[in-house]
């Protein structure tokens, strides 16, 4: 059960707004340097990566295009209907021959990203790399090379800056640890 004031549900701030903005600027600088002379396509994985994507693209000085994808998550309605992960929203443009960067909010088990990488590889991009704001390796099942990483975080239930619990908390400007009593944790 959450409070009307969402900040009351946060046990601690793990990554502050200032830290996030500094890291976004750093990543934007690196991407601008690494992809200098090329056009980069950022693919945001909805919905959690939206704030990160919006900030990151503005920190990149080279030409970029953006696209959005959404992948079903285990445990949602899609699980009951098909029993298999599926693309809920596909790319709006072709990535054939393009330099593509998957922009993720968090990588946990790696299962979603593994599926996404396989799917996008089939669309023949020139390059396909991964940028994540948060890396939580404690429960990683699938080892995936992460090319750009914001923060490695411990195994805690985090919300904010796009990350949600029950579709709430995405609008918090920082990454916070959700109180266990809110989500039934111990």
């Amino acid at each position, binding site marked *: 059960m959450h409070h009307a004031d969402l900040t009351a549900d946060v046990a601690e701030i793990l990554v502050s707004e200032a830290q996030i903005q500094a890291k976004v600027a750093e990543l934007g600088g690196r991407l601008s340097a690494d992809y200098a002379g090329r056009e980069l396509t950022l693919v945001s994985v909805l919905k959690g990566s939206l704030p990160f994507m919006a900030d990151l693209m503005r920190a990149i000085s080279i030409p970029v295009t953006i696209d959005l994808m959404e992948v079903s998550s285990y445990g949602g309605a899609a699980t009951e209907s098909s*029993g298999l992960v599926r693309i809920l929203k596909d790319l709006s443009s072709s990535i054939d021959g393009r330099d593509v960067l998957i922009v993720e909010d968090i990588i*946990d088990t790696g*299962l979603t990203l593994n599926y996404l990488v396989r799917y996008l590889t089939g669309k023949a991009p020139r390059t396909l790399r991964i940028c994540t704001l948060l890396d939580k390796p404690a*429960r990683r*099942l*699938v*080892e995936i090379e992460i090319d750009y990483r914001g923060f490695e975080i411990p*195994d805690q*239930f985090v919300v904010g800056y796009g990350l949600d619990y029950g579709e709430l908390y995405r609008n918090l400007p920082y990454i916070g640890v959700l109180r266990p009593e809110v989500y*039934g944790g111990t």
Partner: protein
Amino acid sequence: MTALDPVPGTAPNFAHASEAELARILDYYQVEWRYEPRTFPILFNLDGAVVESFAPDFYLPEFDLYVELTTLKQSLVRKKNRKLRRLRELYPDVRIKLFYARDFKALLLKYGRFDLAASLSGEEGQARALAATPTLEGGSPEGPPPEGSPSSAPEAASIEGEPAIGSAAALGQDVPRSTRHGRARRARRRRRAAPTVA
């Protein structure tokens, strides 16, 4: 088809509901898995005979990774950790990941499986495994195992300290179909099982 491939139309007899749930998750994300495909001898007596072995729950061939789930309370995982350390010492090239109960519960909470998160810890989850009829890659859970199916698990003695599995017969249910994987091991478990479950 090799001895490690599941027989068409069968599904593993998971020892715990958490294993069945992980199988569903892996199926959902189209990750190939094998259930207890290999038993590793980890302790030998002076004569060289195997006195303890360890069969990790899952093998993900695409990633060459074994995954072991433990639903024991954190305070009781010392024995599992010891087995894991021993396996890593003896088989340094084998990649294995241990999921503790708290890790798996957190995963279930992440996926919104609140009902399962609360019930899949400790012995209660074992009782549920006998009643569950998961839809898994490999087909229906119905039907007896094929006659003459070879077992992929060697007849090594195994010292298992995990809570006993409630007998399906004692629960008034049909004895679950078993697979050729680890059949002898599961038979030894059933002989040691407590007959009643709440």
